């Protein structure tokens, strides 16, 4: 039962930049990324701002065009090539793959009632035939997302952030998708609410057998929810592994630095963190070789000239670093 639902190979997404009529540059937001997402898994995608994680998520939903490489969606009923989807096949894919947004305020139209918001995908995709059928489906999903059915007549302004996020989740689920991309879906929520939404996502995933791609900048949230994690830096995939393995033994210096940068909840554990110097370079002006070499404490000549490939050691723990083998167990000393 380890079939891949999403299989992306050497995927790149570029955007033309420059506002002028004539000048066009290409910004490679996602560069040569290969990921495989197992059916029924909770796949975490971690990175800082500018890492391309949101773009990768949207590319897999065909919300932004894939410029190079290939991505396949296989769920037993259909086998789709995401990069070239169009027409009826694209409509079909929309039913199968959905997005949950970050900002629970911007994601809901202030002019529609909760019922209309959740019903919109059903109406657009013509999934239900009659109004009664639509209502029944909306109520079923709303109940699953622990929304008060009495509140369906209300408008979004009546709700707090956590409730809005549950509405947003209900809308994403109503068409019965197999694959859900949750883009920073708890980042805007307060800590006391965040856990509630995370638990809801987990429960829905196991109840309905869905596959999640959970995009987040927060490692501790990812560690708690996901069973497989991929780390991105400047449009590249730098490391991917099952969660426990990744957290027990990170291999890429960037992943190690990310872990140690999380502020510890232990007041006596101060100053242990190994800090990275510098900041993530601009995606329009990328460094040569390994994209991380400008901040890496272990960079050698080879890192500047040659870009590392994602290496697999067979255990599902892949890393793209020239020196990962020699660095096992070595903490970055700065």
């Amino acid at each position, binding site marked *: 039962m380890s079939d891949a639902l999403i299989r992306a190979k050497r995927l790149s997404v570029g955007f033309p930049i420059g506002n002028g009529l004539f000048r066009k540059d290409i910004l490679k937001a996602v560069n040569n990324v290969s990921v495989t997402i197992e059916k029924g898994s909770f796949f975490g995608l971690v990175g800082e701002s500018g890492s391309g994680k949101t773009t990768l998520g949207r590319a897999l939903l065909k919300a932004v065009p894939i410029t190079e490489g290939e991505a396949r969606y296989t769920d037993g009923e259909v086998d789709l090539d995401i990069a070239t989807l169009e027409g009826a096949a694209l409509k079909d894919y929309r039913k199968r793959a959905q997005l949950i947004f970050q900002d629970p305020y911007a994601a809901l139209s202030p002019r529609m009632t909760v019922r209309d918001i959740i019903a919109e995908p059903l109406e657009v995709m013509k999934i239900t035939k009659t109004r009664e059928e639509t209502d029944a489906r909306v109520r079923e999903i709303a109940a699953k997302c622990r929304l008060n059915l009495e509140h369906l007549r209300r408008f979004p302004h009546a709700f707090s952030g*956590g409730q809005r996020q549950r509405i947003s989740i209900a809308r994403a689920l109503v068409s019965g998708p197999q694959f859900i991309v949750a883009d920073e879906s708890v980042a805007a929520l307060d800590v006391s609410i965040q856990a509630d939404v995370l638990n809801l996502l987990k429960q829905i995933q196991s109840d309905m057998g869905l596959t999640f791609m959970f995009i987040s900048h927060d490692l501790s949230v990812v560690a708690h929810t996901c069973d497989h994690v991929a780390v991105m830096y400047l449009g590249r995939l730098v490391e991917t592994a099952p969660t426990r393995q990744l957290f027990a033994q990170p291999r890429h210096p960037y992943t190690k630095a990310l872990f140690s*940068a999380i502020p510890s909840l232990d007041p006596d554990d101060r100053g242990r963190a190994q800090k990275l110097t510098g900041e993530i370079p601009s995606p329009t002006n990328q460094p040569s070789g390994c994209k991380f070499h400008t901040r890496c404490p272990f960079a050698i000549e080879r890192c500047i000239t040659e870009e590392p490939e994602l290496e697999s050691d067979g255990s599902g723990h892949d890393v793209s670093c020239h020196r990962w083998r020699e660095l096992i167990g070595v903490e970055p000393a700065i």
Partner: protein
Amino acid sequence: MSTLIEVENLTLQFKTDEGLVTAVDNVSFSLARGEVMGLVGESGSGKSVTAKALMHLNASNAVYSPESKITLHTEDGPVDVLSLRKPSDLKVVRGGAVSMIFQEPMASFAPAMTVGKQMIEQLQLHSSMTKSEARELSIEMLDRVGISDAGRRIDQYAFELSGGMRQRAMIAMALSTKPKLLIADEPTTALDVTIQAQVIDLMKDLVDEFHMGIIFITHDLGVVAQTADRVNVMYLGRLIEEGPVRSVIRTPKHPYTQGLIAALPKLDDLGAALTPVPGDIPSPLERPSGCVFHTRCGQIVSDACSSERPVEHQIDETHKTACHIYAEAAT
């Protein structure tokens, strides 16, 4: 340690279309020189409003109760902050003895001015420095907060700097007047983790060096654990727990603080279930009666929770909390 600032019975309401909204409800605390206090709370807890009150900086529709009193102890004697009216008197709490850094550094730099011009202007406003002295000091400060090539950066505009650099420049600007009290309002929230770690480090160094008092406002308990000596936890405008950082984080006494810590995903135990605090934060228009937390509390002890405001209970010499659980135990 001598007291730097004292806040007594601070109550602050905002006049809105829907009536008076309570933002801060009878909050008292004090801060000693060189002490770092973490002010923790979620949205609507009134933590930012409290901090702004220290600089007498809240919007014009803010109403302070007559009992509210904020005393700042400077070298020239105590200053009653809330009685200050004239801009020349307010200087002492706005950039003089008190400085503030914000979550969004872009907002505190004027877009049409270079970083240096603003720093120099501020220095000249608060001291009798000449322009060249002020410029020299500004470059020194920028250098001190880890901005490389400070002599060149000083003539750049804020939008030309990266996010982390901007935050550093703001810290440099806030510290250049050598304030006695620094208020940091979510200074790392908008930053990436790796940059956040750098900024936290920088702030720790600066505390040692300048020996000022810091009020560190954040929603992130991890950041507090890393920076603060003492923690104040706020919920819906009330101070519900106060104590040394170790004691509050390791043995939280108030059910809300306990809930917050339980809700936090922890890296050392990946399998542990996350326990959310039930319910939602009530809207400011629907302030619960009695203990403001009783609508979400799992440890209700009596009817008093929903009808009586809990009094502060001293757990030990330094750790106190406002919860009916301890009042029951005491009687």
